[in-house]
């Protein structure tokens, strides 16, 4: 039930850039031309970061490869594409045209140019003259451009990133966003450098260095460019957890924190909500659009609206960053908190996945002895997986035939109780594995067990150790 009858307001002001909703197209093929961006705005996108402009380049053919998983395509996507392969003047002319026709949407110029102050001043001036609402500095492109001393060659060296940001800020009149590369040990280093250089905002992440796959027939790594391949930039659903972590790291660091545009594997409103909960002020999407087109924004918008209604959030700011305080360092977690797995017998379908997982991948505390034998006790008392399996392999089964077996043959299949596993709570360490592998929603839940001990973190415990108390 929604708490508000009015629709929530999705508009955002990101570092001074206004946009009707937080959904922006990331700088990439979907923002290659003015015509494309106008169609995207018609479909509902709130903003677009123009495909990175700079000196004209030549792309390879082919340039993409992908990871398919369980029959689904493009779980992970990799590209060896460079920045825009169109002349800068053409891009800027079109940008001016788009801004004129779509004044309300955010239109940001992504820029990359050779590392001289003059070149940057020049390109900033040109982009702003054309009407860009903001500038995004591409310090992330991991291939092709880095060899030319641009892209991640800048983004991986904090001093360079700070210096170039500062050059840009000397000239810029619009907000300056620094787009970060994840191909670095600690993303906060460059984020801090960008902040020192005067950046107004950050965007993270760009693509991750990757080799997606090797064709086992031809032994050719993908993509294939005339018999050779090269590492590419990884994006799509597979990179979301990495991107979320990097956004959290930056947003929890006072020296790095700036408005951030979250990028990486966003394909639905759910992904977007997660990025915003970790502090993102807008989100950018590339791979999902390359796979399914601009139309996916429709579901993103009303999905987010519905969720906000349900939760009683009226604006993006109402929930932005709410999850940040819940992420701490490991040393701050309560060591005296305990949960154990609980199986809902009514929901269990008897697949035994939790049993296998617990025996092979956890602590051997799930058993299939529900109807006979010793119920509690050390694992030595319970049949091991091989024994359970051997017993059923040596059983004799026949086809149930109505004529020969009567009504028995017609009985439908229900999960026999003997197939519903049982958790030995005294052995369960509460690791969560079984509940993750169980295919049935809410069948295995983790239930809190009262330890009657006060909350204690590792930090507190080790401090106690130092003072001589037992630990």
């Amino acid at each position, binding site marked *: 039930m929604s708490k508000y009858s009015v629709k929530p307001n999705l508009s955002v002001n990101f570092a001074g850039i206004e946009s009707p909703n937080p959904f922006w197209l990331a700088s990439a093929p979907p923002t290659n031309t003015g015509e494309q961006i106008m169609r995207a705005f018609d479909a509902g996108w709130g903003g677009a970061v123009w495909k990175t402009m700079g000196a004209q380049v030549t792309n390879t053919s082919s340039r993409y490869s992908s990871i398919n998983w*369980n*029959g689904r395509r493009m779980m992970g996507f990799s590209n060896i594409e460079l920045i825009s392969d169109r002349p800068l003047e053409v891009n800027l002319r079109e940008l001016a045209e788009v801004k004129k026709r779509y004044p309300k949407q955010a239109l940001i110029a992504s820029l990359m140019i050779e590392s001289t102050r003059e070149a940057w001043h020049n390109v900033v001036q040109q982009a702003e003259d054309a009407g860009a609402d903001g500038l995004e500095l591409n310090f992330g492109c991991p291939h092709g451009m880095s060899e030319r001393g641009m892209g991640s060659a800048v983004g991986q060296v904090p001093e360079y990133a700070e210096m170039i940001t500062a050059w840009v800020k000397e000239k810029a009149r619009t907000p300056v966003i620094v787009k970060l590369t994840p191909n670095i040990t600690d993303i906060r280093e460059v984020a801090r450098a960008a902040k020192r250089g005067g950046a107004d905002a950050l965007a993270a992440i760009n693509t991750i260095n990757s080799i997606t796959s090797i064709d086992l027939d031809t032994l050719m790594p993908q993509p294939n460019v005339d018999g050779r391949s090269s590492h590419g930039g990884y994006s799509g659903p597979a990179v979301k957890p990495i991107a979320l972590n990097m956004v959290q790291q930056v947003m929890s660091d006072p020296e790095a924190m700036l408005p951030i545009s979250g990028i990486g594997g966003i394909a639905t409103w759910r992904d977007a909500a997660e990025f915003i909960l970790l502090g993102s002020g807008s989100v950018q999407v590339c791979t999902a659009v390359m796979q399914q087109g601009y139309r996916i924004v429709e579901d993103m918008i009303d999905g987010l609206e519905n969720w906000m209604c349900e939760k009683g959030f009226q604006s993006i700011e109402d929930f932005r960053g709410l999850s940040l305080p819940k992420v701490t360092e490991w040393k701050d977690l309560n060591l005296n908190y305990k949960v154990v797995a609980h199986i809902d017998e009514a929901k*269990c*379908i*008897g*697949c*035994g*996945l939790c*049993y*296998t997982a617990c025996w092979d991948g956890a602590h051997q505390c799930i058993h*299939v002895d529900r109807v006979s034998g010793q119920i509690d006790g050390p694992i030595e008392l319970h049949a091991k*997986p091989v024994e*359970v*399996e051997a017993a*059923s*392999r040596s*059983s*004799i*089964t*026949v*086809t*149930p*035939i*109505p*004529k*020969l077996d009567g009504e028995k*043959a*017609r009985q*439908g*299949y*229900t*999960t026999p109780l003997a*197939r519903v596993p049982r958790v030995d709570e005294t052995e369960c360490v509460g690791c969560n594995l079984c509940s993750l592998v169980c*295919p*049935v929603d809410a069948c295995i839940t983790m239930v809190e067990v009262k330890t009657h001990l006060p909350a204690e973190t590792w930090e507190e415990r080790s401090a106690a150790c130092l003072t001589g108390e037992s630990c």
Partner: protein
Amino acid sequence: MQELLQQKPEIAERFGDLHPPFAAQAAVVESNRCLNCFDAPCTSACPTHIDVPKFIKKIASGNLHSAALGILDANVLGASCARVCPVEVLCEGACVMHGFNEQPIEIGRLQRFAMDHFHAQGGRLPRKSDEKRPEKIACIGAGPASLAAAAELRQQGFQVTIFDKRSLPGGLNTYGIAEYKLPLTDSLREIELIKDLGVQFRLGVEICGENSLAELEAEFDVIFIGAGLGAMHRLAIPGESHSGVIDALQFIEDYKTGKTTQIAGDVIVVGAGNTAIDAANAAKRLGARSVSILYRRTREHISAFDFEYRQALQEGVRFLWLTQLMAIHSSAIGITSVECLCTEIDSDGSLKPIDDSTFHLECNLVIPAIGQSPLLELLTQCRDVQLEQGRVVVDRATGQTSNPKYFAGGDCVNGGREVVDAVADGKRAGIAIARLLEVAYV
């Protein structure tokens, strides 16, 4: 045999697959749906205990050859079983996906996918032992039971000879199973694998009479009886001897071997078991104007599987319940009509004819399908082999009969179940025979 391998195209077209093969990508998607259950219930439900999740996961990873070898290791007739098994009551019926309120994994079609690949690549059965054992085993009947026993024994190095009175091997797989499930050519193709192992076939040889059994006993160390069931029951009504009355087994055999290529006019099938349904569907597909199944009792009493019944409805077969066939009328041109009587079922469940309820149905072909009789002629002659209700009594785990030299399996033991049961019986017997001979050897 060669001309059989080229089935008439118009027949092949009419007998399109009941369960068409998977396209490669669909097979991968379907196999990824399988949960890979521990101690999988589908495996327990399969009489041959094929490790279902194991082979399905191999399909998912593109390891098709190994998937097929895994199937064959448990069930040497994996290709035909994939198509003819009543999976709804076997593996797929046990799939945990039912509990999930979802479609079960299409195990049968996945099994077929792996086996089709195996055959397309010209795969061969692996040998389990290099040893050449001198002991000789005879198998009576070349149906699924014997084939499984023979393959197991041969793979372990024994000398095996299969005898069958027919000219083609395969038993009901070749002659009896509906073409839209298993084309005759596919049955034979599968048997080539077993021939290739070195199993000897003596076809067109009927084992009959005490003498021929005594000869077998003299020549062979162990005898496996996989002779199936005998002739079909007769209707015992006036007009039955007309040439337009063909029992279901004969009828199916005739179209499978190309002797019958089309049917005209109205067909009456008597009985409502799986065989009746197969015959009725076939008559329909061969062009009959109408096909009606007459059954004395009601829908609730039929012995056909549910899905077989529904399939028949889909093919356009008509069911006449509570109807008993009384007589068959014919003229010089052939059968003209059948005379029927309505029946009712008493409160105690017994069947009662309704007086003065006789009616006539136009008809040109009558196909009785009221069950097969046991093969008593042969079985009673097997020395010291105990029978019960016309079935051979065996130790279930080994297939050994009351005469330790005789083993048995398949329809002649279980009274007529399915191909996969016969294969499981044969395999268990094969393993037990090998063990027995091994002990004798040392």
